[in-house]
């Protein structure tokens, strides 16, 4: 009785998608551009290396945000909270409890993901603007806790003297060593996002992004996958927060303020939301560009806002979308 519907299918006729050399180039171009910027910083060292290093840390944070906002089409203004948990976790455990960096980072990660679970479970039932407001509140609350819980976080003073990451006894304290380590971290993050994107999990995210009703009708547990996406984003946020405190050696509430949220949104949209390379190229461009206009420093936030608006008008799919436009696909 249980005949499988597959028997009604005709013989498989696989039509592989053709990939032109031009398309390969269009895909590689943003990566090559990013590699050029990082390569320059590696060679020059000094201040450019510091700027690019921060950009790479942001690239990881924004990649996580991209899983939730790009792949899953949800909105969160509160991811800074999870970066704060990771950052403070690493800073407190290494300076006050003499943990080494790796277990401290993992503990911070576990705490951030646990917090995301506790926060996400009730709030992800909210939709659209309500979810945005709830997540904005989470970011502000985390910032407030970092300021007020002085016995642990030292308030505005911040925690200094966080040791750099060391691997097999070798401290990654030089510009170039730090930059190399961060590059490896960014590549690993991008690799993870790329694999998630092209998997059953990524398709479930894309399904609920496209239509929650249709996704549920196909058996996708929308609430579960939304939460999973939120946890992944929180995990990458925490990872980037931990990297930040080890690279800078210092953490204060200011690091995880609303400015961080604005900056990361700019990077995501400038780079290209929903793409793998977008967060990386966006983080690099948004970090490096202001340095070329140092005289405008007071108007930095204004410039970000203007850049965001101009990009939304002229390149709605971000810089990654512009690169993709190089690829002129033949119509069948």
């Amino acid at each position: 009785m249980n005949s499988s519907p597959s028997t009604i299918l005709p013989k498989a006729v696989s039509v592989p998608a053709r990939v032109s050399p031009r398309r390969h180039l269009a895909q590689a171009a943003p990566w090559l551009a990013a590699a050029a910027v990082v390569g320059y910083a590696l060679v020059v060292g000094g201040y450019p290396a510091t700027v690019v290093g921060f950009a790479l840390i942001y690239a990881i944070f924004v990649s996580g945000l991209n899983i939730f906002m790009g792949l899953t089409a949800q909105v969160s203004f509160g991811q800074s909270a999870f970066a704060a948990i990771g950052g403070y976790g690493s800073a407190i455990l290494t300076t006050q409890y003499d943990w080494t960096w790796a277990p401290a980072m993992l503990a911070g990660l576990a705490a951030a993901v646990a917090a995301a679970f506790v926060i996400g479970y009730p709030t992800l039932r909210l939709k659209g603007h309500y979810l945005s407001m709830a997540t904005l509140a989470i970011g502000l609350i985390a910032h407030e806790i970092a300021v007020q819980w002085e016995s642990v976080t030292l308030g505005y003073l911040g925690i200094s003297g966080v040791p750099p990451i060391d691997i097999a006894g070798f401290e990654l304290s030089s510009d170039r060593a730090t930059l190399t380590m961060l590059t490896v971290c960014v590549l690993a993050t991008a690799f993870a996002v790329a694999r998630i994107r092209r998997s059953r999990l990524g398709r479930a995210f894309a399904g609920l992004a496209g239509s929650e009703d249709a996704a549920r009708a196909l058996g996708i547990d929308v609430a579960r996958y939304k939460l999973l996406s939120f946890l992944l984003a929180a995990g990458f946020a925490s990872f980037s927060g931990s990297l930040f405190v080890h690279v800078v050696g210092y953490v204060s509430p200011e690091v995880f303020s609303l400015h961080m949220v604005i900056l990361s949104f700019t990077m995501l949209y400038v780079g290209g939301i929903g793409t793998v390379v977008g967060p990386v190229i966006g983080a690099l461009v948004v970090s490096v560009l202001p340095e070329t206009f140092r005289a405008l420093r007071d108007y930095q936030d204004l410039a970000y806002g203007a850049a965001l608006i101009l990009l939304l008008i002229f390149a709605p799919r971000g810089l990654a979308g512009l690169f993709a436009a190089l690829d002129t696909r033949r119509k069948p």
Partner: protein
Amino acid sequence: MSAQAQKACLEVQDATRRFGGLVAVNAVSFQVKPRSVTAVIGPNGAGKTTLFNLISGALSPSSGRVLFEGVDVTAEPPEAKAARGLIRTFQLVKLFPELSAVENVKVGCHLRTRGGLLAALLRPRWARRMEAETEERARVLLELVGLAATADQPAAALSYGQARLLEVARALAAQPRLLMLDEPAAGLNADESARLATLIRRIADDGTAVLLIEHDMHLVMNTADEVVVVDFGKKIAQGAPDRIRQDPAVIAAYLG
């Protein structure tokens, strides 16, 4: 046919749904037999889509029960019903517009595939094989509905008729036990509509029960084994297509 085959695939018992003072669906009962095509017809605003939503779980009934393969599934959410093999399409097509046609169908394979975060990151051999099978299966299903040529186009670029057919292919990817189609022929040209009629018969003959809402009487008369007629939320007739065509109550509802 064994006795089991006669057992209803879907049984709707006194399904009722009120919206304030309006009774959109009023104590409707009917059964869908395995391997059969059942059509729900009725004038616009008769409550057909509301009835569909009650069955699929998009709405919960004010009273009444929905039994799927003998199990009371009245209170289950859509994804739980889908997991049992009750898969629907939508009157207003709901595709994933950013994805290509073939990716849309691959999303439909969700229930028939396995793997979460670890499978995605580590991509073990079984996951790679499953991905390849999913891709092949999706392309075969597109071929089946006549969309092979548009497999790699974004769903948003498809015509209305193509989008409808894509939604059917996506639903088939979930290997339903009961396939519910909400006006699948709306917006289809004559060719596409004829192809759809053949496809629906094939799906049913192969063992998947089909329940459809349809305005295209030609399609209904060509494919349905059983027709349920609703008007003002009530079932006014049920029977074989030939009988329904001559039923005075049905003629009155449509003409009067």
